[in-house]
């Protein structure tokens, strides 16, 4: 159902993608919808395939509401960062920036239960993103077919995914400390 909806959105690429000029002139929905549309069929297929693998194998345990809320937050943060620090970026579309953020965020949070697999994901994604960024800053383009890959979105997503996961983990630790303190005081 979700895939069909995303596929249907493809027909309205011009209206929905991140477009700097249009966002600045008031079309703010593009901040979120830009992450849902794709440049072409292969771009769409690759991102959807990755989303399916990630969801079915790693994040089935996560509540859909939490997933949606996090998606909304990361889409906002990524778009706003692109707007503020990459003024030359005229247009952007695709799910991958968001996928990087979600993957890193939930992997970091789940790493305490199933350490090996989620630490491996964290490591793999960070290595991939750093390699991509180094490649970009040494003057080369990252391409998928003819399409230029905006690796900046991946880097921003990964950074925000890590930061928010660390904040969440710190929050959980604080909560569990408070719980143990309450329990101890009850016992005393």
């Amino acid at each position: 159902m979700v895939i069909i909806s995303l596929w249907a959105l493809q027909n309205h690429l011009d209206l929905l993608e991140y477009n700097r000029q249009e966002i600045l002139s008031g079309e703010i929905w593009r901040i979120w919808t830009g992450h849902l549309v794709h440049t072409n069929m292969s771009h769409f297929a690759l991102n959807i395939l990755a989303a399916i693998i990630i969801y079915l194998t790693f994040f089935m345990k996560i509540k859909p509401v939490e997933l949606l809320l996090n998606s909304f937050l990361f889409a906002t943060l990524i778009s706003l960062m692109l707007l503020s620090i990459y003024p030359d970026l005229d247009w952007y579309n695709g799910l991958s920036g968001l996928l990087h953020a979600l993957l890193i965020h939930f992997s970091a949070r789940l790493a305490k239960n199933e350490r090996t697999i989620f630490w491996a994901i964290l490591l793999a994604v960070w290595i991939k993103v750093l390699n991509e960024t180094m490649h970009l800053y040494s003057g080369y383009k990252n391409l998928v077919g003819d399409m230029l890959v905006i690796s900046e979105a991946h880097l921003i997503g990964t950074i925000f995914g890590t930061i928010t996961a660390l904040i969440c983990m710190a929050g959980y630790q604080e909560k569990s400390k408070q719980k143990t303190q309450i329990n101890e005081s009850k016992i005393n």
Partner: protein
Amino acid sequence: MKTSISKIYVVSIATLFLTSCTSYFSHESRRGVSSSLVDYLYPDGQIPKKHEETMPHLRLPIKVGLAFVPSQRGGSISLPEAKKSQLLEGVKKKFSGLNYVKEIKIIPETYMRSSKGFEGVGQIARLYGLDIVALVSYDQVIFTSEMKSSVLYWTIVGAYLIKGNQNQATTFIDTAVFDVNSRKMLFRAPGVSDIKKSSTLMQVSQVSNKTKEMGFKLAMTDMSSNLANELSRFKEKIKNDKSVKITLRQGYGGGGGIQWPLLLILAGLSILKITKR
């Protein structure tokens, strides 16, 4: 009288055969082909105009033209147009991934021949919409000589079986990159190669041609790697001395795409997770 005439006849026939044999076996030659950048940019002994202090202005991403400077001599042994385009395609591939390069166009030599000088380069640049032009000039000398083993050519069969000829190609290639508007040279990169190949007498022209092509190919590869080094040096230089003005022509755009390597890693990890359950 009759005997002396017949003697003269025999001697002249023998001389004729012997000299023809000598010319048949002696196969030493030196040929060359070259193109000069200075002669191309300043044809007919033109004197360069007084140097003006104009700062090159590059609007990124740039459009680059890549062309061989037409040869002046040795036209018959020059590489065919198709081979030259093929060599330039190799250079183009190496630099087509750069994010500050919008497009690299290969300019056919026939276009380059039609007009010379900076005016000619300007016309071509306008035609293709180029910002900078990389002009490849070259100098190649092909030397074919006989080795000691070539004495066996006298056995006739030896000419087919013994590799008594040495074919050597010394190639020098130079790429100079110019800003079209300011006519200033931004940087240059050389490439050299020196290869030798032995052959039988019967294969001389065939091997010599191969050596010539191989010489160009190796020199172009050498030049490409030097060009990459010069390019990074140029990037550092303009950051420090501000000798070139850089502005962004327009914004860019693209998609956020998961690429195959990450997808494969994720698939591998998911299989690992499923098998662990």
